[in-house]
């Protein structure tokens, strides 16, 4: 049964392959590689290269006729966009759901429809359904990133602070640390990325996907909204506890300071853990995570968690079956992947293995998670980049009205385009 289904699902591709045969023979593309199918895997996670290499070795051992060619370049997402523009699309690549880039690619038939693949059923539907676009799924979620507050355990113990669960406890902790002469918070605000990793925590807690739909239709405003104002006020309240010259510190410097224990807390996503571990060998003992406490109701607080590795296959790929086989293999080996990558898995039944990341597990297990709010915005990556720059301005001038006006104008400009 399974085999016949497999063959059946391949038929259209066999036909396609037959059409392309002449061209291929002319260009002599298969010449160098014998009978092996070479599948390009374009991935944008430089810290994941070793993990994928290990898994690719295992996969190639099981499938001697397939060669997976992992390709990682700096600024990968931009390179991927240009490769779409020029029609040179990799066979497998990382795609995030909901985002405009994903929708644009799916609606232009660049992505292979995976809805009916068996491996989709192994994935947590809460997460995987984010890939739904007109009822079909063009990507498979493998792992999730998570965003919370990293803290230095010795500093917290020294001042008798427990990990805060409410907003009041959170601000009290900052106050205590500040009064004791500690640096309560490290921020690397010279890089725009840091601004949104912090700010979006409030935005994600305040607004749900329905809000963004109304928002994108122009039914909600930023300037008239109490929630946006409240979020901005909370941002300013926290930012005063950051180290001196936080606007002049970039991410690398901030990472270094925090790993050295120069500050008590740091807002950063789980992707930073491998870097910090490289800077401090006792990292796992000295540091922990707690979920960002946006409000005074612990049940209402959310952890931002988006798809970190989600895989799509090019519709025009010459080796779609081989590519899908690799996606299926990665999902089957999600245990291994989660352990090596130190991330939450989107595959059901796979638990987090990372000692630091465990601090965020209660939220993730309770489904107190929210997607990155910017994934719902019109304008996608561009709107996010603008949001970050406006946030950077806001941190300098601390002018809430100006900030909300700027954001309103920005969102409006992206609405007009569509």
């Amino acid at each position, binding site marked *: 049964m399974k085999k016949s289904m497999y063959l059946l699902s391949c038929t259209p591709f066999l036909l396609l392959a037959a059409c392309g045969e002449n061209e291929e023979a002319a260009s002599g593309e298969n010449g160098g590689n014998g009978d092996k199918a070479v599948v390009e895997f374009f991935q944008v996670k430089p810290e994941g290269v070793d993990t994928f290499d290990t898994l690719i070795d295992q996969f190639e051992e099981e499938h001697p006729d397939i060669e997976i060619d992992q390709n990682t370049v700096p600024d990968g997402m931009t390179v991927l966009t240009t490769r779409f523009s020029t029609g040179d699309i990799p066979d497998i690549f990382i795609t995030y759901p909901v985002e405009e*880039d994903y929708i644009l690619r799916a609606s232009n038939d660049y992505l292979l429809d995976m809805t009916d693949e068996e491996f989709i059923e192994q994935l947590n539907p809460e997460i995987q359904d984010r890939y739904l676009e007109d009822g079909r799924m063009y990507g498979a979620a493998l792992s999730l990133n998570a965003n919370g507050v990293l803290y230095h355990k010795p500093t917290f113990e020294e001042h008798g602070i427990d990990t805060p669960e409410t907003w009041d406890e959170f601000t009290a902790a900052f106050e205590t640390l500040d009064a004791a002469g500690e640096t309560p918070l490290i921020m690397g605000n010279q890089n725009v990325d840091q601004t949104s990793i912090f700010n979006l925590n409030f935005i994600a807690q305040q607004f749900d996907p329905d809000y963004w739909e109304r928002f994108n239709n122009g039914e909600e405003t930023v300037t008239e909204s109490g929630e946006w104002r409240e979020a901005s006020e909370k941002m300013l309240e926290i930012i005063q506890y950051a180290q001196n*010259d936080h*606007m002049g510190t970039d991410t690398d410097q901030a990472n270094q300071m925090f790993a050295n224990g120069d500050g008590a807390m740091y807002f950063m996503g789980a992707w930073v853990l491998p870097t910090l571990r490289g800077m401090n060998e006792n990292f796992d003992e000295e540091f922990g995570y707690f979920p960002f406490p946006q409000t005074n109701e612990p049940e209402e607080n959310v952890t931002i968690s988006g798809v970190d590795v989600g895989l799509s296959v090019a519709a025009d790929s010459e080796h779609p079956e081989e590519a899908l086989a690799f996606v299926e293999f990665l999902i089957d080996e999600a245990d291994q992947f989660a352990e090596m990558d130190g991330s939450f898995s989107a595959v059901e039944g796979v638990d987090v293995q990372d000692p630091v990341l465990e601090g965020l597990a209660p939220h993730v297990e309770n489904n107190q998670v929210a997607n990155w709010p910017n994934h719902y915005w019109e304008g996608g990556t*561009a709107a996010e980049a603008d949001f970050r720059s406006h946030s950077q301005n806001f941190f*300098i001038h601390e002018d809430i009205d100006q900030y909300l006006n700027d954001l309103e104008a920005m969102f409006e400009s992206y609405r007009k*385009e569509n």
Partner: protein
Amino acid sequence: MQNSAYKSLRKGYLILLLPGLLLLALFYVYPVLSALYMSMTNWDGVSRSHDFVGLVNYGAALTDPRFLNALSFTLQYAFVSTILSNIVALSIALVLVKKIKFRNFFRAVFFFPAVLSMLIIGYIWQQIFYHVVPYFAERLNIEALQTNMLGNQDLAFWALIIVTVWQASAILVVIYMAGLQTVPEDVYESAAIDGASGWKRFSRITLPLIVPSITICVILAMKQHLMVYDYIIALTDGGPGFATESVTLLIYNLGFLNNQFGYGTAVALMLFVFIIVISIIQINILRKKEVQL
């Protein structure tokens, strides 16, 4: 008889010209024309189809505050860094053509920034602005410089200018040195006999005679700085906020980040026209100042 020889010679020239013309057409004329067409479409860089929209993109750019902000930043940056780097380079060149001790050593030192890779320069200067400048500012009690200049909206501009002038001067020094060495010794001698020395000797003799060098240096520097991209990527990434977003960085962001390929191309072509106009004005002004001995 003569006429037909001339004709066949001309034919020969034309045939020799052809490969060059073909290459020019293929790699220069065709891309420019296709960019001109792209700038009149709404292509997003990904879709398989696009619509022709005429001059809409150009009109949109002229009312886009982000473009105007980038344009005004780029112009200020280009003018200030062109003027400063030429003054600095000329001053250094004046010293380095004199018979001073360790002349060759200093020539090598001042050329050094030109051969460093832009990324390395970016990293070095980031460290300098983060660690070194605040360190001295604290000891000298200069409040404004005690934090990273790159994180300050007003000072980031000047931080960029410092790095640009430091690197861009290196090449200009070489051109100015070459120019200064073409000024014949006997002109100076007769000027000395007439009683000219110091500033007068420089402004009346040296300067007019090296105007060709100045023309080259100013045009080269201006063109390079109007298209500034690498310094900004390496140092500020356009921030803080939008304070140091240049037109080229905007073009990149529009095309590859915002999925507005058509609009980005329109902005790029506007910059292209802009640079041509500025270059023509510069050449016209400086040509009139040139003198022949």
